[in-house]
């Protein structure tokens, strides 16, 4: 309850974790607001069906609020002028010069506090992925502000959880992105860091995942707990195993 989980990937694609959390929280009966910036709805729907959850059904019964970034952006760019005054587009910052993500935050807050939300368990905000906001013109400070506001609203006030995906690279030249990622790492309760193997590509082991529990934030004097596993992604499943003990080796 009230936890902020950061999904971070380096040199590989960590989106399988997003699919996992989406189906996990939906199955648990939570109300989910999914800010899907990178892919279309049908992509997530197809994968979720493989994992046993139907996104369309969840949307219809009001459990899932899905913001399809690509579609909103198209509406913003090619839509007609008649915008209802009370409902600005959540991605309005793209067409404005002052980059403030307030409209996006309002969208998140209203979708998680809408009527009928009480019938579900704690609310969850899922973002895939945060770097797209930087690409679309939001400044790093605006992005951090947005996350901060979301934390206050979702984690503290509503006792819900937030899961955010970011990309990072070791010698990345994208300073804005690195700034956002580092800042979020400091404030997260749990970090799932997915990395490609240091030795290069391998067919049986797709990468390694580092699970960092930020116990140091709880001021009990404990250190962060780090666990490292390796994984292999299959069509409907991901298998995790201890380092060096992949099924191909045993």
């Amino acid at each position, binding site marked *: 309850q009230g936890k902020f989980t950061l999904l971070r990937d380096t040199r590989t*694609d960590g989106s399988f974790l997003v699919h996992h959390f989406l189906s996990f929280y939906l199955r648990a009966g939570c109300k989910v607001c999914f800010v899907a910036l990178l*892919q279309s709805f049908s992509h997530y729907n197809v994968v979720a069906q493989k994992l046993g959850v139907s996104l369309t059904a969840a949307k219809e019964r009001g459990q899932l609020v899905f913001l399809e970034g690509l579609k909103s952006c198209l509406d913003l*760019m090619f839509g007609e002028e008649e915008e209802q005054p009370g409902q600005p587009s959540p991605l309005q910052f793209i067409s404005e010069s002052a980059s403030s993500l307030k409209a996006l935050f309002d969208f998140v807050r209203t979708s998680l506090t809408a009527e009928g939300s009480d019938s579900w368990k704690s609310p969850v905000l899922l973002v895939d992925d945060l770097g797209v906001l930087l690409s*679309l013109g939001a400044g790093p400070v605006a992005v951090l502000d947005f996350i901060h506001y979301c934390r206050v609203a979702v984690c503290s006030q509503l006792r819900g959880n937030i899961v955010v995906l970011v990309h990072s690279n070791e010698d990345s030249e994208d300073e804005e992105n690195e700034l956002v990622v580092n800042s979020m790492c400091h404030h997260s309760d749990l970090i799932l860091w997915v990395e490609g193997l*240091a030795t290069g590509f391998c*067919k049986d082991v797709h990468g390694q995942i580092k699970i960092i529990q930020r116990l140091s934030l709880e001021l009990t004097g404990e250190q962060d707990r780090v666990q490292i596993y390796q994984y292999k992604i*299959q069509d409907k499943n991901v298998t995790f195993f201890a380092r060096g003990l992949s099924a191909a080796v045993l």
Partner: protein
Amino acid sequence: LVFTEEDKYNRYSSLLFKYFLAEGVVCGHDLFVASAKEHPEKILKELPAPLLDDTCRNELGEAATSVKSEDFQDSMKIAWRYQNLPKIEASPTTSTKFGHYYDVSKTMSPELFQSIKWHSFYLHEESSLQSKMKSCNMNSGYARLLHSIQKIIYQEGFDGSDPQKKQKNILRIGIQSLGSVLWGEDICSSDTPEDIHSLTKFLYVLRGLLRKSLSACIITVPAHLIQNKAIMERVTNLSDTVVGLESFIGSERETNPLYKDYHGLVHVRQIPRLNSLICDVSDTKDLAFRLKRKLFTIERLHLPPDLSDTVSRASKQDLAESAKLLSSGCGAMAIGKKHLDF
């Protein structure tokens, strides 16, 4: 969305671009060609001619069988352990025919061309942004291109908005040299460009358009000219497939005996992971291309055997580094210059 990083002198990437469009003509797809450099009509006149089925199949078939018959005769004596490994094929597949083959030395005949519908966008001939069109703070050239694409998609029914259009055809979009100075951008010419978000915003809106309609797009970009590497990282994130072409012209690799059979390397930096948890990763990551008189082929990089007594340090180092670059598949890449010591 296929994103291609151009090679230095744009010789090979424009070839790849033309292949994409030619395939569209042969398959009967509609085409949309946009460019700020050459007039689209000129590009379309230079498309390679498709090879007729029988002749090309025979050619490739002969080449494959001749190699095989030679190999079968010698059984290995020293490296006998390798005998049981499957034969590595130089060019991936040939058993299943996917796509068509083209003869680069001839241009496509106009009759073949007339059967399809094509649209063009030549930046310097287009009218300026009308007041109704929004630009979302983007470079006006990009905004105009997006509006033009969207109009075609909507009018021709590629997005399924018109239920009466029964034939489901695909729109192939080709955009040449995006991001170059000719589009009014300065990311290629200055270290701190004024507007670093135009290109990424453009790609995002384009991605939305592609997802919503039956279309596929190839973009070529002079990546070697873009100083700000952060843009390339963001762009890679926003594209489905990213392929880089590195030609050996003018670089020290041209005379390197390791690469004497090839004209350049193909770096596959990203492959699409759509509608599933995993992507289809091929076995090989080391790809090189060569331009023969008639064919442009992409093959596995075969290194000639190291037969010299004194191995020069320079070439070994170079080879190890290029091997590391080549082994970057779905993002799994060896770090820095660490060698694995055995």
